[in-house]
């Protein structure tokens, strides 16, 4: 799936947008096989774009991604593995108020500390 800069795409309850050439914003929830298939395809295409553009650091804003199934966690693991082999960094922008962000991304970082950065920021409009 080719994703155009600034175009917000929805697959069922999942949304994604290439907000800048080096940042992907994800939102909503990911719980169905169709959304999972599109999500996996999107990340594979993005990986190819990142490698072709020789991007050193790519940001993934998941602050509005409130729920994902285990298949999506596995997809993040696969992306981190490909990024580690290709030599670029993934900077995940997470929200401290979302439990799965707080717990799972710290474990994901431990898989490849030189490849994964976590930028934890409260969501705009979120209560303290």
């Amino acid at each position, binding site marked *: 799936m080719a994703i155009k800069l600034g175009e917000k795409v929805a697959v069922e309850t999942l949304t994604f947008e290439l907000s800048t050439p080096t940042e992907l914003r994800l939102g909503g*929830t990911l*719980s*169905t096989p169709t959304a999972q298939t599109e999500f996996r395809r999107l990340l594979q295409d993005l990986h190819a774009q990142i490698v072709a553009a020789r991007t050193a650091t790519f940001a993934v804003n998941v602050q509005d991604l409130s729920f994902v199934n*285990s298949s999506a966690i596995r997809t993040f693991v696969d992306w981190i593995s490909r990024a580690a082999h290709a030599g670029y960094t993934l900077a995940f922008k997470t929200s401290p108020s979302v439990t799965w962000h707080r717990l799972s991304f710290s474990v994901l970082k*431990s*898989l490849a500390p030189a490849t994964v950065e976590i930028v934890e920021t409260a969501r705009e409009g979120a209560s303290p």
Partner: protein
Amino acid sequence: MSAAPQAERTLNLSRHEAAVEDARRFAEGAVSYCTPECREAVTLAVCELGENLIKYSGSADELNAGTIGVSVEGDRVRVRAVNRVHSAEDAEAVTEIVNKITASDIRELYRARLQELFANPSLPRAQLGLLRMAFEGGFRLSCSFEAPQLQIIAERACTGA
């Protein structure tokens, strides 16, 4: 196998494309008055158990994959999944995983599984659902088997409901 609590809300999970999304909405409705942390945990548990039921339970010819119940009693919330399994061996495999989760450092167990997936991208199954329920959801898991039905129970605190 323990009976359903009186206040349990139950979903019959059918086998269709949007079934897990239905389960997610069911979970949100069942604990809508609970804390955000509890709602997030219950949604995770219902979705992960629902996905497992659809993937692994009974026969694909059966219309329903099983049932998922949610109940809140005092400061505890309980998620209960019941389904038919193909064989006693399948039930034993689940029991083994649940026992391992209960007896282990759950963060380390979760990290070890992600490490396996990281090192072996071709592994066919993620097998993260029960681990996430215990690690991210803070649930204590238990299971029981009375052929052909397998029951998994996930319980945790739900303060501030």
